[in-house]
């Protein structure tokens, strides 16, 4: 059984935001909603590192635990998805998420939050695969096409890895081995309890 994971190799990330725009453009995400973003620490100083962060598709996802309407669910491959038809926009998932992944475009009434939007690992949503509704609500379903998520595929320096956990780990391990560096992948301990 595959288990989908993200890994951002901070030695390679150059803060070009290619992943961010690839995601937005690919899924037609409204301005202001960031399924993915790049964070830089120590900007302008030696030790400047950037990292691209989106939903980590956690193993024991806190967002699923707190959702009052069970709108969030996890597929067997580990991808955490939200049903926008079920979501009521309460925002609890945002408060539960350590990574700030859930996003809320403003809704129609009184500026109240609309349904939650977050990284789908390019796996669409619970609607019929490739249907118009899936496309408008969640964007492309690249996983069903057998393609990797846009952000990782379009990563400028191949810093962002996405895909089956074992293989992501293999690629990263090999890289780290070549660099003679340690094997700690950021975010994994929190997201995957490793």
């Amino acid at each position, binding site marked *: 059984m595959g288990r989908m994971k993200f890994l951002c190799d901070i*030695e*390679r990330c*150059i*803060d*070009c*935001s*290619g992943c*961010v*725009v690839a995601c*937005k*453009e690919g899924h037609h995400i409204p*301005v*202001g909603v960031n399924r993915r973003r790049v964070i830089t620490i120590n*900007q*302008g*100083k*030696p030790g*400047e*590192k*950037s990292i691209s962060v989106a939903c980590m598709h956690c193993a024991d996802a806190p967002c699923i635990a707190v959702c009052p309407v069970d709108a969030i669910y996890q597929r067997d491959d580990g991808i955490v998805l939200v049903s926008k038809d079920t979501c009521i926009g309460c925002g609890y998932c945002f408060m539960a998420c350590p990574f700030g992944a859930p996003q809320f475009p403003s809704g129609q009434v009184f500026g109240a939050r609309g349904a939650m939007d977050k990284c789908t690992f390019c796996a669409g949503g619970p609607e019929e695969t490739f249907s118009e509704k899936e496309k408008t609500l969640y964007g492309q379903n690249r996983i069903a096409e057998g393609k990797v998520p846009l952000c990782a595929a379009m990563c*400028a*320096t*191949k810093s962002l890895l996405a895909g089956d956990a074992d293989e992501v780990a293999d690629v990263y391990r090999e*890289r780290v081995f*070549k*660099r003679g560096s340690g094997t700690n992948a950021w975010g994994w301990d929190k997201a995957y309890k490793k």
Partner: protein
Amino acid sequence: MTNSLNDMRHAKSFIFIGSNAAEAHPISMQHILHAKEVNNAPIIVVDPRFTKLAAKATEFVRIRPGSDCAFIMGLINEIIQNGWEDKEFISTRVAGYPEMVEVASKYTPEEVENITGIPADQVRKVAKILATNRPTSLTWCMGGTQHSIGSSITRAFCILQLVLGNMGKSGGGTNIFRGHDNVQGATDMCVLADNLPGYYGLSDGAWKHWCRVWDVDYDYIASRFKEKEWMNAKGFTLARWYEGVLGEEKIEQYTPIKAMIQWGCGSNSNSQYNRVVKAYNKLDLFVIIDPFPTMAAATCTTDNVYLLPCSSQYETSGSVTSTSRQIQWRHKIVDPIGGCRDDYTIMKDLVGRLGFADEFYKNIKEVPEDITREINKGTLTIGYNGQTPERIKKHMENWHTFDIETLQAKGGPCDGEYYGMPWPCWTDTHPGTPILYDISKSVAEGGLPFRNRFGLETSYVMSGRAEGQLAAAGVCNPGSEVKGGYAEFKDVVPGTNWKTDLSQKTIKDALARGMAPFGNARARCVVWTFPDQVPIHREPLHSPRPDLIEKYPTYEDKPNHFRVFTRYKSEQNPDMVKEFPYVLTTGRMVEHMGGGAETRSNKYLSELQPEMYAEINPVLGNNLGLRDGEMMWIESPEGGKVKVKAFFTERVDDKTIFMPYHFGGTLMGESLAGNYPAGHEPYIMGDSANVCTNYGYDIITQIQATKDGLCKVSRA
């Protein structure tokens, strides 16, 4: 670039000077970081600013803007002092070496420290890294060229690579990352004031060659000019054309400029932009051809402006030359949207109405393929003749067959060819030249010696020594008939040489003999036609170090520099720094491009980087009483000023202000949003950094000196 981006994977060390590849060329980092990781290649970044590239570097060298030449000459000196130079390479393939050594010896590490602010020990360390990690890939960009001594600086870079013996080697070379997507192609086609396509120059011979290619009478073209003398005179440049309109400087032309066509050119990348704006408003006719209204449309407020919406490049087709000299075919993705027209259609219409369509389009029926064929026919100097439209398209279709390490196709329809047939590609079966001046391969397989361009022997004014310019005996490409240096090919077809023989027999003949059509010579360290025969440091026109001006003064004023009087010595004033104490430098950010007309009209990119700012060191900012995020005025000695947000960061040191130059839409603090056609103003607007960039132009190329000006800063 002498090598290719992919070839940088083989470098054993990198030195980037005046380049911020991580922001300006992000995808190139794929290959650079590969070499860093796999070859353990040190990355040395020389920049006034701790850039995002510097964040990936192993050694960051903070340099005072405009002192690159001193640093490089210092490195050369240090390398020679320690005997690290490539003696074999220098003795067989380099000319004018002792003269250069003589000049370089003055740049001791201590002197370099005095000029550049780089600690002497760091100079020694960098020299050692370069000497012990060969080949080194040297990269520069606008940070190296946009100075009044830009041409000296770039020559110093080349000489460094010659001294290290890194030229013509995989993993080495001088790898200049070009800016725009097709700046290489457009430069090759010489949309320039001093050349005809293929760098033929403006001599009578050049005009006659191109008239033959165009299939028109030389006399016809001559009749189009005011007088024949204007055919051979360099025109106004993009950097200073507005002087031809304003008439405030002495110009060498019979008429001021009255009309302007700006075709796909964002205006706010011009330095001293407030003067450009003045010129716009003085024009009788101003035509802007662009998919987006550029800032020019908003700054020009007269009634003589026309906006012609051309399509984007995705709505038309044609070839495009990347920085690695690869020629790729840009297929048309969709038809021009709305009422847009593609460039070719507009040109055809314009030429038709101006009444010279028959001559202009004589051999061009199928657009754009026939144009490519005409280019193939005429552009022999740089070997643009093998890249037929069919071959370029074939490469596009089979781009998956090319090896990522060598860029050579393995099997398939393009077997053995290099991706994009990097020029020179001498014939329609030649694979392209992936690495320039590489004598390890035969010419027919993409090898190349140094070009013989400047005679067979020269005696140097500097030393009185005479030296042969051809390569030493035994130095040649494998399979060469002449085992050693040889002159360029001519008179194979009587009366022509390899550059002007349209039948291309000369080139084929040379290749058949295993030789390069342009000869096999030495790379020269001395350029006897330039004011500085060997590169030397000269202080920027507006120098923050008045104490150095006497020792390193700038040039004499140049009266007819691309038709306009250009001040050097009379502009250099040691007292200026008292009123304008900070160095102003500009650069790119990854989210925007050029003047930003395209990217600031893109909602996602606008969202990512929505505001104009200036980077200022917290120390300086606090000393000036500024607050992070507050507005401040930056003023130039020429009276240009911009109102921008202060961004406190340690990227810059406490003497330097950095501004990205992509913004536009406000001028000296006032919004021009209302001057754009309604609904077509960009999403984000801000003051253009180039209002503040200083006076100063390169002595040879007249490139503007935007990287080493002075400014003063105050709270807004």
